[in-house]
């Protein structure tokens, strides 16, 4: 668990989140938590099983979108709902170990179509990393 957080922003049609942490890995983790919060309305999830995922991005922002879409796919199709992750970044690639609940489709109360490139930004400095992501719901 890294430090950092996320908060919902107003958006007419859909859901937007601001994400922040001390590192880019932390922002990616906070993005995962924002997605899970949206899907489950903040349900508490247990780390029953683990999964590994890999994502290749065109750049850091693209990688953030693809990472969140990977999470959305795992949740909606496979019913694997992660609550914890360890992320390793290498160039524009990402490898992550996820821990979460399996066969947990029934915990999902809101559908997300996709994480989008709309209004997307990811800024990383020595002191902090900050991003904005919009989810199409």
């Amino acid at each position, binding site marked *: 668990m890294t430090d950092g957080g996320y908060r919902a922003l*107003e958006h007419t049609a859909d859901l937007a989140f601001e994400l922040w942490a001390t590192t880019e890995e932390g922002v990616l983790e906070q993005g995962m938590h924002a997605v899970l919060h949206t899907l489950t309305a903040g349900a508490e999830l247990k780390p029953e099983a683990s999964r590994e995922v890999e994502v290749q991005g065109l750049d850091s*922002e693209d990688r953030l979108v693809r990472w969140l879409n990977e999470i959305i*796919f795992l949740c909606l199709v496979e019913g694997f709902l992660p609550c914890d992750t360890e992320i390793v970044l290498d160039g524009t690639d990402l490898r992550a170990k996820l821990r979460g609940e399996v066969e947990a489709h029934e915990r999902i109360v809101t559908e997300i179509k996709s994480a989008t490139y709309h209004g997307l930004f990811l800024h990383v400095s020595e002191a902090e990393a900050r991003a904005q992501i919009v989810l199409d719901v």
Partner: protein
Amino acid sequence: MKFERVDDYRFRIPIEGGMRVPGLVFASDAMLPSIREDKSPEQVANVAHLPGILRHSIAMPDMHWGYGFPIGGVAAFDEYEGVLSPGGVGYDINCGVRLLRSKLTREQVVGSLEDIATALYRTVPCGVGGKSRVRLSRSELDDVLTQGASWAVGHGMGRASDLAVLEENGCMQGANPDKISERAKDRGRPQLGSLGSGNHFCELGYVAEIYDPVAAAAFGLEQGRVTLMIHSGSRGLGHQICDDALHRMLKASAKYGIELPDRQLCAAPLHSPEARDYFAAMAGAINFAFANRQVMTHFAREALADTLKRSEASIGLEVVYDVCHNIAKWETHVVEGESRRVCVHRKGATRAFGPGHPDVPEPYRQVGQPVLVPGDMGRYSYVLAGTERAMQETWGSSCHGAGRRLSRNQAKRAAQGRSLFRELRDQGVFVMADSKATVAEELPEAYKDVADVVDIMDGAGIATKVAKLIPMAVVKG
């Protein structure tokens, strides 16, 4: 963003920076301040940057902030210089509306609305996940992707006569299941014949007012008759196809040197391999959505027959029309006096072909294509007819709905402490929903008044008012 008033219904966004054409926004003076509140006008300008765009970047009066294109956006592209953009279609490919008319009168159902709402809720799968009773093998899914609504009719879910009055007759040519990822197929396979969540619905209503008796007669709409409207799309299959395409189109945009004001507008030249592949996948999603609405039509017919203890034949429920809201299509339009093949993107907009067009079903050809414009669940919806003016000005396109006014969070806050189900019931609307939160997000005042939207289309001569429908029983996801 600068708006130049053209007339009572039209505003022009002049060319600035890299815009290749001006923007054309259909709106009223009263509506313009709310349109300026979000960034949809900037999105109209962004679309105008795309290569090969013809004439205008257009926005309908229900416009609001979308992804890449605004919701309510329409743009046509030159066949040889233009592009295909998944952002011009959206995530819910062929999200659309189907309207059915019954032989029943309002008086015949008004005492059974709660039972009807309950039956529709039980019979038409809805809500998150929303798995259908239809079980598809992999090869059957491929058949759905290429055959569209006719697959469902061929499997006993519908009538052959249904197909004659669907846009594209319910089957878009050019679909290729091999161009659709296994992920997309995995997301879609359990969902054929399900509403989904969000703003999708199945709604029993009645014809409350007729504005154009000739067109209404052609559409089979009589005052007081019961109608059924189904709003849904291509479910997870379409979402994943869009997502897959965006990844590829981002690379393609760089490859072909297309400068993007917004990454969500990523695109490829219309005859490039990337665009051809996306078109083949998109057409598959379009067909899935046509089949989806066809299967739900079958479920709804069953539900009404069971509830009212009447035969399906005596109830009627014939399809009036089925329109796509999110689509890109090859169409022939007159450009600078010449008949040319162009690729029209409609993102939260409805085709509105005028009288005489060969693509308008024969029974409606004298009066123009039916344009179905759902409003919110508490007020009303409209049926319009396409016009020749739409052919000349908007690539035969019109508005698609009311357009959101409040964000989902604002709507939830507005719903706090209220019993929305009771409020709506007091208005004569029985609502069944998978989630109270969805009903809160979709509360009537979260949307613009659709009457204001269609009045602009009617006043501008783009689509003329035919009938008003009032909801009585609504199933939400």
